């Protein structure tokens, strides 16, 4: 996009008075960032107008130019997109946890008429005027949504969609009128639709830095209150926190962030920069403060990536590339996030399934041994297959996975449990029969109705639960079907000593009430 030459002197004037005027007081909390802004703003003013004036560029040259931060335009673009990512990421987290993602969408589309009116004010791109106009329009949009849902029977989603599209339509009307003017097409207003990081000037970056500083400081000061209002508004009211005021403050900050981001990411897609980094962060952590940090980092990263990609061509808009990068990061988090990603979850499910299958085989082996009165130490594969009601080949593959896990050895057509296999088998059978006993004893369920339940629970009973069962049940040597409940042998014990009916079970760690 051609950067309009006419705005540069104005922007330089702005940079000076803007940062000195009201930028600094609001920004006391983020000194290093401010220093960076000032450094960037004070270096190289001559080349600033050149960016984008070239008709054709090679993408390799552009990539090198971007990576080496060769000129101020690139530096402004980097700084601006990082600041944008941080403020949008932080505020977007509140939207996402409060399930108000679409309010951000409506708010960000509703600013367009304000942007157009801001341009009309003095027919040039004045960041401050546009900021004020867009802010007013965005807040008017949010207010109309509230008014419509309060006074009509229309639901919030309908009101949001309506306000979003109507305000946007009004903005397009104003812009099409504006573009008829002789200066209209050169003004750079169309970069506000899809964003153009290359068109960021010192004034824009100063505005973004101020907003980001304001957001960071406000959230840091009122973190506890904002957290409470977002997660438990009822409790916040009980504590007589000013919930309405806090919510309005949050909305105002949101509008600030959206409006300051317009030049870089565009009206159409700024809502995505609110939602996607925050949603990605929510996949990565459970704690809200960590989510805020992740969200700001992901926002900044995708902002940078978008700026980089849009620098590679001549007329490429920044917003879509930024959102696409954020979307890719989200996709990566969805698949690979530790603990909750699709891949780790699938692996965990698979290993659980394998464990359950192994435990079922061990239990069947125990039952075959038990049916033989524990006279032999080996179990023929045919007997195991009959017990499991599967083909012999399937029983063979089941025992193979036991061998891999170190629970059994196979000699010819017979399976022998190792000490650890025997211990595990006893534990599973014990879990099963204890649970049956518990159900008949404590829940008064008929003995013929307890097996299926125990069949599921035996794999997930933890040690603590087993101990509690042992404490609560008065007699734990025989299950409701009259079979002995085995104790857990010490690993070195031989199978035969395990489950004699007359032997007193000792339980985990020998504890017994």
């Amino acid at each position, binding site marked *: 996009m051609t950067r309009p030459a006419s705005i540069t002197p104005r922007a330089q004037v702005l940079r000076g008075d803007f940062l000195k005027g009201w930028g600094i007081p609001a920004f006391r909390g983020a000194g290093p960032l401010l220093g960076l802004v000032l450094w960037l703003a004070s270096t190289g003013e001559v080349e600033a107008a050149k960016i984008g004036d070239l008709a054709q560029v090679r993408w390799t040259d552009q990539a090198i130019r971007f990576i080496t931060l060769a000129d101020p335009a690139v530096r402004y673009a980097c700084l601006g997109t990082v600041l944008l990512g941080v403020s949008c990421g932080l505020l977007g987290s509140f939207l*996402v946890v409060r*399930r*108000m*993602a*679409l309010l*951000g*969408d409506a708010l960000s*589309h509703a600013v367009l008429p304000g942007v157009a009116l801001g341009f009309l004010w003095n027919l040039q791109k004045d960041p401050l005027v546009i900021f004020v106009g867009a802010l007013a329009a965005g807040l008017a949009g949010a207010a109309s949504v509230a008014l*419509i849902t309060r*006074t*009509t*029977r*229309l*639901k919030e*989603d*309908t009101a*949001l*969609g*309506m306000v*979003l*599209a*109507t305000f*946007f*339509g*009004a*903005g*397009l*009307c*104003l812009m*099409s*009128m*504006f573009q*008829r*003017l*002789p200066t209209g097409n050169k003004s750079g207003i*169309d970069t506000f*639709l*899809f964003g153009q990081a290359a068109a960021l000037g010192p004034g824009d970056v100063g505005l973004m830095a101020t907003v980001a500083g304001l957001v960071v400081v406000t959230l840091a000061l009122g973190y506890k209150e904002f957290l409470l209002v977002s997660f438990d508004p009822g409790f916040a009211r009980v504590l007589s926190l000013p919930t309405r005021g806090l919510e309005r403050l949050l909305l105002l900050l949101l509008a600030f962030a959206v409006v300051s981001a317009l030049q870089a990411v565009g009206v*159409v*897609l700024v*809502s*995505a920069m609110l*939602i*996607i980094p925050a*949603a990605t962060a929510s*996949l990565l952590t459970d704690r809200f403060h960590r989510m805020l940090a992740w969200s700001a980092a992901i926002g900044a990263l995708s902002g940078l990536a978008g700026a980089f990609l849009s620098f590679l*061509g001549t*007329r*490429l*808009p920044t*917003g*879509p*590339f930024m*959102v*696409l990068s*954020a*979307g890719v990061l*989200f996709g990566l988090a*969805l698949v690979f996030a530790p603990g*909750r990603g699709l891949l780790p979850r699938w692996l965990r499910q698979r290993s659980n399934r394998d464990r359950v299958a192994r435990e079922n085989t061990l239990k069947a082996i125990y039952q075959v041994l038990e049916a033989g009165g524990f006279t032999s130490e080996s179990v023929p594969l045919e007997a195991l297959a009959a017990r499991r009601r599967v083909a012999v080949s399937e029983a063979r593959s089941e025992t193979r996975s036991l061998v891999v896990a170190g629970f059994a050895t196979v000699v010819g057509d017979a399976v022998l449990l190792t000490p650890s296999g025997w211990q595990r088998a006893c534990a599973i059978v014990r879990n099963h029969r204890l649970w049956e006993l518990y159900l008949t004893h404590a829940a008064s369920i008929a003995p013929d109705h307890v097996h299926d339940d125990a069949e599921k629970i035996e794999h997930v009973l933890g040690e603590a639960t087993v101990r509690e069962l042992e404490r609560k049940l008065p007699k734990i040597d025989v299950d409701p079907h009259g079979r002995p409940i085995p104790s857990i042998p010490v690993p070195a014990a031989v199978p035969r000593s395990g489950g004699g009916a007359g032997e007193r079970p000792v339980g985990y760690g020998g504890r017994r009430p």
Partner: protein
Amino acid sequence: MTLVPEFQYQRVFIEPWTTELGSHGLMALVTFLVGATCGLIGNFLILRRMALMGDAISHSVLPGIATAFLLTGSRGIGAMALGAVGAAFTTHLLIEIISRHSRIKPDAAIGIAFSTLFAAGVVLIAVFADRVDLDQDCVLNGELPMIPLEPSVRIGGLVLGPPPLVRLGCLWVGTVFLLLAFYKELLLSSFDPGLAACLGIPVGRVHHGLMLWLAMAVVASFEAVGAILVIALLILPGATASLLTEKMVPRLVWSLVHAALSAIAGMHLSVALDCSPAGASVVAGAGWFACAWVFSPVGGLIPAWWRRRRASSGGGGTVTGGD
């Protein structure tokens, strides 16, 4: 040159209906067809609280359309249907995957899916600008002013009008026909999905059919009004109608009336201000909504206020009399 052209009664109110009927009248007709088709579908979206599904689909058809153009090089009916089906399917799949397999709530899932797809569409258009017959302006504003310039479709000796008009006309007739054929199923599954399922209505299939038809309508409307304004044309007629009446059939009729009125008012507005016709018709539609909001006899602000005042003064009188 001034921002707002001088107002001339002749130019604003007479010429669109006489000498300019071929261009302005045609644009108004196209806008009406878009508003009528989308408005009929939108009524059911509002009932099902799926207004934002319209938002999602209207954004996410963009990569479908761009890909279809890239692959076929035309904007024929086949490419259009292909783009619509592909887009609807992808959106649905992404939203399902995200909201079912992670802790992300449905609203955020919708937002993520459609904005990423929309961004992908804009990137496709920007990167392959020389090969796609679309630009970013068309994505937002539509190409209503271009439509009268296209050569007309002729069948035999009959001149039917430019291709988009014919397409939208067919789509509108199809929508009305489908609505008549499946009215009972749509109505019941929107109001009471449980009962509908009990009565053997395939609720899931009705839902998917509605989504697919919505995607078709959005894609067909795309070249007229662009990807974002179509949301207004989906929601505004139904929302206005729901303020005017409580019954479903009158609602559908009112939404057609709203589409017609906003097409006409939008035409005059765009001539008067010399601005984008699609934007103008959305603004006009919002104006009609505001009228219904304030003056509707059913629940409008002024009648409700009047009734409250009368009730409170009358009620207050009887209470004092009783005491």
